[in-house]
């Protein structure tokens, strides 16, 4: 299981680095991890996000809305759409920023034992963030972060009880 988790984390971080580059960010942040998770081919997290009405595109839209909303809070309305559009960075970031580190730390800490780590722990860590871009974007998208977090925790413990994950026979909700 640890191997499966390790492979998953590597692929998510790799994808998150691409997302960060697309957004012109110099570091990988929690929102890039969330985009990467939404793009990943992993059943549990995909189902959890789908429950909240989220896929890769919806997460991207929510993040853009959060950006524009927060600018509005500052009294800034950017009429020039060119400025609001993300500009791809010239190099792919390799460092995780504070928000991504925090999400990874919290996600990993939620597993009592390394061998209990599941892909959904990364999503859980992101959902543990209480302030900042991701929780705000989720709130603006009408996602109940606490409920989604509870469902994620439940999915992880169901998975733990089932033992090694097998593709068919998903735990019922």
């Amino acid at each position, binding site marked *: 299981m640890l191997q499966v988790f390790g492979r998953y984390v590597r692929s998510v971080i790799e994808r998150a680095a691409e997302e960060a580059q697309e957004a012109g960010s110099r570091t990988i942040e929690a929102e890039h991890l969330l985009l990467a998770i939404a793009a990943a081919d992993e059943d549990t997290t995909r189902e959890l996000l789908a429950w909240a009405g989220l896929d890769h595109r919806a997460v991207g839209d929510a993040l853009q809305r959060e*950006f524009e909303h*927060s600018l509005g809070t*500052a*009294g800034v309305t950017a009429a020039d759409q060119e400025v*609001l559009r993300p500009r791809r960075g*010239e190099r792919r970031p390799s460092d995780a920023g504070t928000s991504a580190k925090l999400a990874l730390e919290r996600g990993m800490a939620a597993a009592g034992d390394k061998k209990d780590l599941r892909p959904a722990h990364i999503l859980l860590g992101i959902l543990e963030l209480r302030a900042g*871009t991701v929780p705000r974007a989720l709130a603006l998208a009408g996602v109940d972060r606490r409920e989604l977090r509870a469902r994620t925790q439940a999915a992880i413990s169901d998975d733990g009880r089932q033992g090694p994950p097998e593709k068919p026979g998903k735990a019922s909700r």
Partner: protein
Amino acid sequence: MSGAEVPASRDPGEELAAVVATRRLADRMEDVAVEKAMRAGWSWSEVAEALGVTRQAVHKKHARKLIEAGVRLRRRT
């Protein structure tokens, strides 16, 4: 860009998010503005002076991006 007025203070979370968003906006505005200036034939030194940073700083931050965007750059003077 249009109007910027400082609104009455709100929830601290909103205000902190506004700080993050305006920083990011400033970064994007810098990218756009530097590219426009360089396309208009400004030198690195002139752009640096206008931004209040060193020429090295502006070159390091923007040169590769501009070359990739196909901007013909003047010599680094």
